[in-house]
């Protein structure tokens, strides 16, 4: 439990500041959190300080945290345990009462943001009269919207009134939706979230001297955001409307918390603090008891914990040390691999292709990317030289002889891959690891002609390679423990999260995306208008519509994936030969300036027309087919042992395809929509992951 310790600090002017230190008695790896017991104890401390202030014993109150941490926010385990809605509201009210007390002490309060300040941790600071930040503090953020909540201990009311609506929208709404982006202390200062910033070396000393200057009046505190009243009436709602449009474009309209936050921010323009806090109480209570928060907490736990300890990963001591990496292919994918491997592993990376011209092009691309990294300041000049020197290209495969880890990124055809590995196996050492980036072929079949098939593993990246955090590691019946262990160690060194899957068609992500793309294609070829299909998928809350996805993946690849899945499971997947005809066109769909698909191109209409039927489906029918199709497919995958547990499927969808927290990936959503019950007369989770509202 995080306790509130108080010590009196004498200030140079002769005043006394009572300094509260939040400390949970653990080291910095276990940050302070704010549970009900902590809040109640802090409330008592503040009551005592209020009396001392009235008695003239203290002239200010400060609050700071243990080394490196102010507080990481509300204790989430406590919040997930609340049952009736009024209990959820009590959590919000308690936070408001206690933290709000920081502005009702009778003397000014100073928050010294010495380290990590998330959610309720930052709201401690926002409720204080003044704030400073340690320039070396870890992240500062209000990440609630990312978790399906809103800043409900004063943040949604106080922040826009402190720094202005536009900046507050960025901190409270936009940043959490950008993969939970957080503020560095310097940014927090620039935005006006804190009044002053000091280097770590004398942070508390400098902050206390600054506080004394504020108390004596020697240091004026200038806040731009508070002063401009005039443009408020007009600019405030306009800013919220603009943000609302951006949220809709980014995440659709299924997620509740961004819209609740937008409304709170809009209404924070007027009225009293008490009214603002009361709105937060109700909003927070609504969200805490909702399905989306329950699913978000499940998803958060997956990416925080399960992703870091992959199920089925062998002992990392078994891994082969990788001192040189070979990449077969010099195309775009291979070049992206090379860049990632060389940046992360800092070992020699070799690329190859059929002729010198293609090899040179591949190396040149990588060198250009390194120049870009250097220009952005991501690497210094010496490191850039090191990286450039580590990347070489050759047409002479004998240069692969001393590679410890060879990954292919050649054309997606079994025969081609078999031939590549046959050639490489004759050159590399007997225990060198071979990896294939195939997205849908059988890894076992790719390795069928190897002398040592135990060293082959699937190592499936997601596009864009530098950004997407998932690698599916595919084990064949022959793959040995050393190979598997090496794959996990390499994935981790690359900064990726790995999930172990069986060698089944499409593994996890592509199998389920094929379901999405297939159902969309099916509906169109039945005669459903394109935009009806696009709208039908909206309730899933996916990061993009099905035809945005197909267009991103590429129509050729999509047609190929659908063929592969349909040949494996003809009764459950959909493909249409016409997709290949569409794929030949330079452009299949037209998009607006926000990247939304608005229509087929006229050429595509012409190509598709002969294949389109006259039995259009409704949005409801399409949605139900997708839901039920996903539920039964996931159930089958679990029965087949593609992954050990449904959590791994959800984790893959979140990390590899960006499926939303509010769905918990897929399974909590399918359970709560009744799809699981319709598909297999049960649920994935027992009890289902539901809110209590």
């Amino acid at each position, binding site marked *: 439990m995080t306790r509130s*310790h108080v010590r009196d*600090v004498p200030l140079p002017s002769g005043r006394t500041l009572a300094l509260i*230190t939040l400390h949970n*008695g653990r080291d910095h790896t276990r940050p302070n959190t704010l549970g009900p017991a902590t809040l109640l104890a802090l409330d008592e401390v503040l009551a005592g300080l209020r009396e001392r202030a009235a008695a003239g014993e203290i002239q200010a109150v400060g609050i700071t945290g243990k*080394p490196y941490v102010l507080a990481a926010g509300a204790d989430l385990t406590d919040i997930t345990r609340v049952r009736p809605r009024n209990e959820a509201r009590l959590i919000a009210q308690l936070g408001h009462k206690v933290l709000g007390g920081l502005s009702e002490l009778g003397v000014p309060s100073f928050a010294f943001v010495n380290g990590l300040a998330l959610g309720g941790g930052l709201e401690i600071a926002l409720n204080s009269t003044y704030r400073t930040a340690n320039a070396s503090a870890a992240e500062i953020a209000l990440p609630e919207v990312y978790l399906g909540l809103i800043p409900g201990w004063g943040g949604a009311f106080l922040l826009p009134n402190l720094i202005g609506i536009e900046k507050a929208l960025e901190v409270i709404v936009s940043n959490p939706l950008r993969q939970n982006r957080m503020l560095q202390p310097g940014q927090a200062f620039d935005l006006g979230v804190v009044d002053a910033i000091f280097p770590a070396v004398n942070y*508390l*000393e400098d902050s206390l001297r600054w506080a004394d200057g504020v108390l004596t009046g020697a240091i004026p505190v200038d806040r731009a955001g508070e002063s401009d009243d005039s443009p408020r009436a007009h600019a405030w709602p306009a800013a919220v409307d603009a943000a609302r449009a951006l949220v809709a474009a980014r995440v659709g309209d299924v997620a509740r918390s961004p819209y609740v936050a937008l409304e709170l921010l809009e209404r924070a323009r007027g009225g009293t603090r008490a009214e603002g806090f009361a709105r937060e109480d109700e909003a927070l209570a609504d969200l805490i008891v909702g399905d989306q928060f329950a699913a978000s907490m499940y998803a958060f736990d997956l990416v925080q914990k399960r992703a870091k300890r992959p199920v089925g990963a062998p002992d990392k001591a078994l891994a082969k040390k990788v001192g040189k990496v070979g990449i077969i292919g010099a195309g775009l994918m291979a070049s992206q691999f090379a860049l990632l491997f060389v940046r992360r592993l800092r070992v020699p990376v070799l690329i190859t292709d059929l002729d010198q011209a293609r090899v040179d092009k591949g190396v040149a691309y990588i060198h250009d990317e390194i120049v870009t990294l250097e220009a952005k300041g991501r690497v210094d000049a010496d490191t850039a030289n090191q990286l450039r020197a580590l990347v070489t290209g050759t047409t002479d495969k004998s240069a692969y002889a001393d590679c410890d880890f060879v990954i292919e990124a050649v054309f997606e055809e079994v025969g081609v891959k078999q031939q590549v590995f046959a050639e490489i196996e004759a050159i590399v050492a007997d225990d060198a690891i071979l990896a294939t980036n195939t997205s849908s072929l059988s890894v076992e079949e790719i390795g069928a002609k190897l002398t040592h098939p135990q060293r082959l593993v699937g190592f499936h990246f997601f596009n864009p390679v530098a950004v997407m955090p998932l690698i599916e590691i595919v084990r064949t019946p022959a793959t040995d423990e050393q190979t598997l262990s090496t794959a996990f160690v390499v994935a981790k060194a690359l900064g990726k999260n790995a999930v172990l899957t069986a060698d089944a068609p499409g593994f996890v992500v592509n199998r389920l995306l094929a379901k999405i793309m297939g159902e969309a294609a099916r509906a169109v070829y039945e005669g459903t208008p394109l935009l009806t299909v696009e709208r039908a998928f909206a309730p899933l809350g996916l990061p993009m519509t099905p035809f945005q996805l197909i267009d991103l993946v590429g129509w050729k690849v999509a047609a190929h994936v659908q063929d592969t899945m349909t040949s494996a499971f003809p009764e459950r997947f959909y493909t249409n030969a016409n997709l290949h005809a569409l794929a030949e066109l330079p452009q299949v769909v037209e998009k607006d300036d926000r990247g939304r698909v608005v229509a087929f191109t006229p050429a595509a209409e012409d190509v598709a027309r002969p294949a389109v039927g006259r039995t259009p489906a409704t949005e409801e029918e399409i949605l139900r087919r997708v839901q039920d199709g996903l539920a039964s497919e996931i159930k089958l995958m679990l029965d087949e042992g593609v992954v050990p547990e449904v959590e791994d499927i959800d984790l893959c969808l979140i990390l590899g395809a960006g499926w939303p927290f509010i769905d918990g990936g897929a399974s909590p959503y399918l359970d709560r929509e009744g799809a699981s019950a319709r598909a297999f007369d049960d649920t994935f989770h027992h009890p289902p992951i539901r809110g209590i509202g």
Partner: protein
Amino acid sequence: MTSVTTMGASIASGMYDLALAGGVEHMGHHPIGSNWEANPRFVSEKLVEPGALNMGVTAERIHDRFPHLTKERADRYGMLSQHKVQAAYDAGKIQPDLVPVAVSDAAGAWGLATEDEGRPPTTTLEGLANLKTPFRPHGRVTAGTSSPLTDGATMSLLAGADAVQELGLQPKMRMVSFAFAGVQPEIMGIGPIPSTEKALRKAGLTIDDIGLFELNEAFAIQVLSLLDHFGIADDDPRVNPWGGAIAVGHPLAASGVRLMIQLAGHFRKRPDVRYGLTAMCVGLGQGGSVIWENPHYDGTKK
């Protein structure tokens, strides 16, 4: 102190124009009686007696050598040190040279250290008389006549004459001479006596030229032995006017510059004094002394 003498000498030989010299010590890392990672040869080859590794034991040896320097004189010296530090604080003489430091207590609660902590300013002779003598049964050295274990850090800026002129600096003191001298490790506390004689000789001065003394009070007896040697009274007002290490502690690497900071503080108020001495003993048998000249000296009186 050695940081100052090393850098001072380096400036004198033209190797630097300006230098920062100081030190920091966390005495929690030097628990009493076990403060040396001693070379095992010291004892196995009988280079020193085991007692030479325990500073309190070496202090008892000074009492042995000079029986007239009694426990009562040491207690009185220790008590006055406490009183002098408190008086200096009350008069606001020490605070201007301090930098507040954030510190956390055992529970992790932050506070601000704004003065030397842990002093018992109400120390009395009666109280001191009954303290234990941890270094020897029925010995003479007690917690009341030893420097307590405290943390500390100090810093000074040294500059050569050319740099002073070029940058328009206002020197607080001028280094005249310094010297180190070796003594028997078993009685290391008398080290400042020969080192001071040596430093005086190098400066062409005598003890009578020294108008102010800042002597490190590792132990009361160690200061008393120097005063006795030079025929100075135990309570001579020229000696440690603001008290010393018996009250504020002796964080080893920080103490030398603290003596210098305080001497500089006296110089500013005493234009009648031309020369001052800072001196300290060194464990395992050395003394170090630095003689300083007061730039505020107006020649009215030596």
